[in-house]
């Protein structure tokens, strides 16, 4: 009785809406049998994006997008709104998770050359989605409205300003005025919650439509090149003969992977808590160490390591080339082999690019180029470096601390990494060479000629000359 009632209600709904007839074929369309675990990352990216939309809407019901309130408001969300801290944590970590899944998805598509005929546009839309995702991550970092957000905006503004001719206008457009102010936050808020997600939702729809239109690609096999004239018919024939329905055969893997990823994400979010906010955004607090969020650490690393002479190229031309290059990928080698074993140069490219990003991220996280701002006052001189030294040499050790040398140089493993460690400098440079280095600078070192008296310079160099491995004498002049 009840069952039949439910059945007739369901039948009525289906008859009047036609939803089943609309979605059914999509859900059960045939996909290649070989599309297995490699293919789960796109679904996971989409899942995290949907999670971002839901948690984002929730947060928007409480967040105050105002330069005077934003920062305090986050503390209020964390401490007083039920589950506020957890939602902020999930929103923050899910952003990172979405980027990780997206990169894996792109990597898979690239390694398997899925972007070849006829799926060029799917790749291109995907590249736009990738850019939008990074845009959302950057604008999201601004929403925290802390010191990192403030100085991060300053960095963005400085880069925008290097655009020839219209630099200042672009910068004013980005900041919403001549300085970083309330308008800046509201601009980025509008981008973060309206513009970018709106574009994203539309393009995700298009991306999925294209996936349906051209079918999910098969795992590449060497010796089965893509040939434009025959690919479509062959693909359809194969999928028809050996394919499996997307639901449930392929979807079950997506479910398992996405479910695990979601559980992991919630655990990570609960374990780590919300990201930020950092220090209060008062620009007169200059005792700050601005750092970008995780997805941008590699850019931070690159910006720090490039020589100043190629800055304009690196800031403006290289990103443009990179983006154009990504768009152009499907048109180079549009046909031909898809198997990684037949495309060694492409695979080498992936390996090199991911190594570069990995190394730069690590460099960005450790930032050895940044002076340790309190190195001179916080780190003691190792006592064994003072034992048996003359009073003059010891006074040199004082000068070394006092003149902030350790902000950039380490002793006993502690101190800045911008300059070389000084533990054995006496074995490498002679007294005269040291004097010249201190007075005139060179390499990456400022000249201290005007900043230290000759007595101070003499003392510090005498101290440095005592720093050499016990089995090696101090370097002699000219040696």
């Amino acid at each position, binding site marked *: 009785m009840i069952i039949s009632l439910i059945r007739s209600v369901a039948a009525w709904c289906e008859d009047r809406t036609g939803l089943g007839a609309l979605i059914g074929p999509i859900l059960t369309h045939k996909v290649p049998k070989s599309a297995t675990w490699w293919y789960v990352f796109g679904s996971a990216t989409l899942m995290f994006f949907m999670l971002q939309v839901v948690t984002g809407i929730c947060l928007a019901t409480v967040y105050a997008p105002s330069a005077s309130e934003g920062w305090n408001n986050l503390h209020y969300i964390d401490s007083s709104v039920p589950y506020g801290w957890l939602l902020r944590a999930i929103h923050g970590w899910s952003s990172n998770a979405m980027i990780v899944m997206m990169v894996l998805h792109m990597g898979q598509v690239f390694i398997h050359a899925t972007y070849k005929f006829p799926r060029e546009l799917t790749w291109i839309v995907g590249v736009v989605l990738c850019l939008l995702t990074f845009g959302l991550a950057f604008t999201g970092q601004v929403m925290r409205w802390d010191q990192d957000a403030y100085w991060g905006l300053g960095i963005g503004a400085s*880069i925008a300003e290097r655009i020839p001719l219209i630099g*200042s206008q672009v910068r004013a457009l980005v900041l919403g005025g001549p300085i970083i102010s309330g308008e800046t936050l509201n601009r980025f808020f509008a981008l973060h919650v309206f513009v970018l997600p709106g574009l994203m939702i539309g393009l995700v729809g298009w991306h999925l439509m294209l996936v349906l239109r051209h079918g999910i690609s098969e795992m590449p096999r060497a010796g089965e090149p893509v040939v434009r004239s025959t690919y479509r018919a062959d693909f359809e024939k194969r999928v028809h003969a050996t394919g499996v329905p997307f639901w449930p055969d392929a979807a079950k893997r997506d479910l398992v992977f996405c479910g695990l990823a979601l559980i992991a994400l919630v655990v990570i979010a609960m374990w780590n808590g919300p990201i930020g906010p950092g220090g209060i955004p008062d620009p*007169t607090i200059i005792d700050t160490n601005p750092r970008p969020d995780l997805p941008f650490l590699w850019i931070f690393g690159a910006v720090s390591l490039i020589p100043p002479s190629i800055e304009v190229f690196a800031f403006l031309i290289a990103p443009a080339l990179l983006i154009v290059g990504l768009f152009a990928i499907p048109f180079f080698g549009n046909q031909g082999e898809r198997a990684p074993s037949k495309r060694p140069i492409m695979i080498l490219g992936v390996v090199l690019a991911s190594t570069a990003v990995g190394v730069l991220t690590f460099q960005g996280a450790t930032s050895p*180029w940044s002076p340790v701002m309190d190195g001179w006052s916080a780190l003691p001189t190792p006592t064994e470096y003072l034992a048996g030294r003359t009073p003059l040499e010891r006074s040199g050790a004082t000068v070394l601390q006092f003149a902030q040398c350790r902000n950039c140089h380490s002793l006993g493993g502690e101190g800045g990494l911008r300059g070389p460690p000084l533990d054995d400098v006496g074995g490498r440079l002679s007294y005269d060479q040291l004097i010249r280095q201190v007075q005139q600078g060179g390499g990456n070192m400022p000249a201290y000629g005007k900043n230290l008296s000759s007595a101070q310079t003499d003392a510090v160099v005498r101290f440095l000359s005592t720093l050499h491995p016990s089995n090696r004498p101090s370097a002699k002049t000219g040696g």
Partner: protein
Amino acid sequence: MINKSNPSDEQARCRGCECEGARRDFMLKAGIGIMGVGAIAAGLPILGFVIGPAASAEGLVWIDLGPTDQFPQGQTRFGEFVDPHAAPTDGLTTRTGCWIRCIALGSFQVFSVNCAHLGCPVRWFEQSKLFLCPCHGGAYYEDGSRASGPPPRGLFEFPWRVDNGRLHIQVGILPGLEDVKP
């Protein structure tokens, strides 16, 4: 379809077609035109609103940093001011720092805290007489000139003047390579 009907009918219908077609044509053209005018009327203010900040040249303003005798000769001190374009909703963000160097009596240099590389706040170290930047390790000498690291030039300086024994500087824009020439 029409070859089964008789000629007079065909002619009559065709005349009607032409007339109706022309009218439809005119309506379409007029519609596009009217919509175009409407779109311009609505679009211009929207465009103006969005690009307003880039188009408006907000002027630089002289502000007062206080009596000159609070800046000892030969020293570099931190100064604070509120940007003249501040609005109430800006919160603390419009508070701005600067480094004030008194070279000799009545002679100053006022530096922006924003590193000439990418705008991070530089810190002054009295003992080594250097400004150091925490972001990418830029360093500057006491007079603001570049010492080492990635900055392409020395620190940005604000124009200054002494008025009635008080130090004034000209501010109003986040200093960057384009606006503040060396």
